[in-house]
């Protein structure tokens, strides 16, 4: 539960928005010319990182505009929003963001409330 800044309307409650999955998955220009495998990758395969994720959001109960956001999936913190068509901010801009609450490995889950001695 958090607020999201719509680049058109400003900061609004998360419940006004819908998530649209990974951003910058480009639809192949000429689908007929590519292999089944390439097409399937476009249709079905999405990244699922723990950490920085570029994704699409739409202000469903607002201006209905789509936009892109950079979210840290381990903290749910939205680090940046930008309009469709704008250049995505480089990954290194978000390098120092804390990865997980308890400093466990980058991959996998964990829920340790006590600091490792």
């Amino acid at each position, binding site marked *: 539960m*958090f607020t999201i800044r719509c680049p058109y309307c400003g900061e609004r409650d998360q419940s006004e928005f819908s998530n649209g999955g990974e951003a910058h998955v480009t639809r192949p220009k000429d689908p007929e010319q590519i292999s089944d495998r390439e097409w399937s990758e476009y249709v*079905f395969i999405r990244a699922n990182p723990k950490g920085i994720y570029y994704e699409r959001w739409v202000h469903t109960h607002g201006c209905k505009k789509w936009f892109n956001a950079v979210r840290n999936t381990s903290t749910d913190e939205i680090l940046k929003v930008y309009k469709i068509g704008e250049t995505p901010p480089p990954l290194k801009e978000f390098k120092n963001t804390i990865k997980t609450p308890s400093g466990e490995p980058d991959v996998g889950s964990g*829920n340790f409330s*006590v600091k490792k*001695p």
Partner: protein
Amino acid sequence: MTESKIYFKFDGKKYAGNEGDTIAAALLRNNVRLIGRSFKYHRPRGIYTCGIEEPNALVQIINEHNEPNVRATVKKIYEGMIVKSQNRWPSLKTDLGSINNILSPIFSAGFYYKTFMGPKGFWKNVYEPLIRRTAGLGKPPKEFKSKSIHQHHNVDVIIVGGGLSGLLAARKFAGTNYDVLLVEREDAFGGILKNANKIKSINDQPTDEWLEKTERLIRNSNNIKILKNTLVTTYNFSDHLIALEDKNVGKPQDNEKPELVLHKIRTKHTILANGHIERFITFRNNDLPGVMLAASFEKYLNRYSVVPDESPVIFTNNSSTFSLLKSLTDLGHRPKAYVDIRDQKNIEKETLELLEKFSIPFYPKSEVEGCEGQKEVKKVSIRTKKNKISKIKTSMLCVSGGFNPDIHLFTQSKGLLKWDKDHLTFKPDRIFQKTITLGSVSGNFSYEKLLVEVEKKLSEFEGLNELEVKFELNGSEKFQIKELWETKHEKKSIWSKSFIDLQNDVTTKDLRQAVNEGFNRIEHLKRFTTNSMGTDQGKISSINALGIVSKILKKDISEVGTTTYRPPYSPVNFSAIAGRSTYEFYDPERKTPLHSWHVKQNAVFENVGQWKRPWYFKKSEDETMHQAVQREAEQVRKTAGILDGSTLGKIEIKGKDALTFVNLMYTNSFTKMKPKTGRYALMLGEDGMVKDDGIVCKINDQHFIVTTTTGNAASVLAHMEEYSQTEWPNLNVYMNSITEQFATFNLSGPKSRVIMSRVFNDIDFSNDQFPFMSFNNFKYLDTEIRILRASFTGELGYEIYVPPSHALKLWQRFFISSRDFDLVPYGTETMHLLRAEKGYIIVGQDTDGTVTPLDLNLNWMIGKKKKDFIGKRSLTRTDIVRENRKQLVGLVPVDKTLGIEEGQHVIEHKDLSLPIKDPVDMLGHVTSSYFSPNLNHSVAMALIRGGKRKIGSRLFVSTENLNTIAVEVVEPNFIDPKNERMML
């Protein structure tokens, strides 16, 4: 203060309490100790604490729609309140369920998992009803309409807790530019100042005076909002907190006003000043009524002026009980004995002085081994430093096992803890959000250091006030504790139990057994034993459990770690979560402009999304649904019928590139389509699966109107928006929902042309002037209507789009103009039947997101020459073109008197015998099935593997009673395969 008495009932008996009393305080005032029966063993239980941490004293409030599991230590009494004890039968004093106590060996750790494995059917018929009757908490509340509301806050700072630390913080923020929310769970500020006898004065004033002044100052500042009787239950990611406010504290419920407010708070900084919780020590029969936590006992003295007992035995492992000793002796009471696990030389001077002054029997380096008594404590058994057992008669035992910072919210926020060796507890270490902890929750139990802590931790804020505070204490504030989690039983019997979780009846024996059975990880152990899984979440006991387990495992307690703290901190009423979103406010109801007419004509309604649609019309009181549908369907094909199609989604698409866009969205080609014509069209997802269908009407290349299925109207528009904004932002196109701008009538049947000509006598409906799938706009009275010739029944048909303002009049005119034809209004069920007779699909019924146009024999709808449309490339994927996919076919029963059931399996063989030796190969399932009055037998559609090749063969359909019926596989087009009727 005590002049006005408040009367309430507990288990049928009337008691008097004082204003401001909790149920527990009032019952203690009346010497009532026995409050309830325990969860599993039905042991007698009393009041253990004086607050939210209470594990035992849960009651049911009968006059508040039976609200169950209310903490007697929190809920305040009011005149006429009716309270009942829980989990007892037939009465609290003689509870038959206590036989479980004797059967306790079978109720040990993991008994749910071990005991109820079989035989088959026993769970549902025997075990579950039995457990539900004997185990558990209160009974569910009666149905009621919640008046609870939600409230939102956006603040700079939230201060959780209006105790000493919270007030000091608020004092610093008072009158500054920060927007502050101060939340206190009790009805008064003060916390420890009101509960205990630790601070003598502040700034040379009595603490009450300082409190009053401080509160006034905070109230008068215009930047601090105060919420009392409000419990912060949740600390989510992204600085989002949830708090529950009780609006009716000490008052009967007012049915006109909200009883609870759920506050949703967004903040920039969170100051946690929510204090600490005292923990117990585990010993034999530590659950008996009369055992109470020491600080809670003191709270009853100081806050409620109730003396639960004038001469209790005090049992401690730390220095904090000095405060209780002082409070009691100040009131002129003399404890029966003071039992301290610590060596005399470690016990603080002021305690020893008091003990001597009042000649209180003193047992240093001793421990309470157990309690005796049937329904309450009668004797306390002490193991003295010489390892002798000494028994003291008493009716109350006050226990202190040390203090835990109330870290629940802090860990919810994902902050990390560390072990504090001085206080033997976990305290906050690394923060994960913008969290500041102040006072005892941060592990700081010193008043002297508190001022330094507040100044230091709030130094990041600018322009705060200076604090001028000076404390004078009662006794020294040096804290000293000796580790003790449990004491050893002297006596073994079935009755002798040491409880580690009072609410869930978990004993220390259960912990040992669980570890022995291999559950050596704390999270597993918790679930196996159900330790700390009650509604109190083990607030007074969970650290003791860690202590005991760490000893068994011979590990450091910080290595054992804690279980995960999850919201809410304390149970939140469903009525508060639901708020006003119940009953008629749960979901909007959408009604068509003809709704009132349908009601008058005895329509039975069906919910389609939020819409209320006529399902069928009852012609007479005793007409069944089947009769009505058969009558309607027959009449449509005989003369004509009319359907309210207003709920159909309608989207207007405009723009220079509208044609290109529509060509991309739908499978069909619209390029060569003439203006003022429509086309049945399919919409796919990128995966090639059918997403929606509808009619695309072309006004010109820059202007289209498309219809969608009723349920998909919003998602189709969203799908179009998504592609136009993200994939093809270069296309000049915009779209808008116009669903509500038109009522839609679907007129259908051989007589529909005559009827149209009568209603609109200036329009030429001949085939030449008005061919199939053409449309036009016409003036009608002072407005404009659109008529499209289309058919979803296979009959000659027209769709009329009319503004809602004129809908009812025009609808009635249809009936007036067609009395001689018995024009029949029909509902959605008849519509489904009629389209099934024609083999037309319903998206979502005959398709389920795994069905392509090829599977539906709709290849003709695919614009193969189009370079691209959404999903086109997927249609040539190897999996999509493989032969054995499930394909749509028609089914007709061989025995024409039989009916086919929707959802049944289609199989190759006749036999469905039991027991099944070989799995029966399911070819697919029946998607639609109706009894056709026009063919006088059942017709069905099914998706079956390799269906197209099976046309002409015989298969079987399973039935509810494990029989099968033989069916012929046919083309899914049962009536008028040449489509002559709709071209009439």
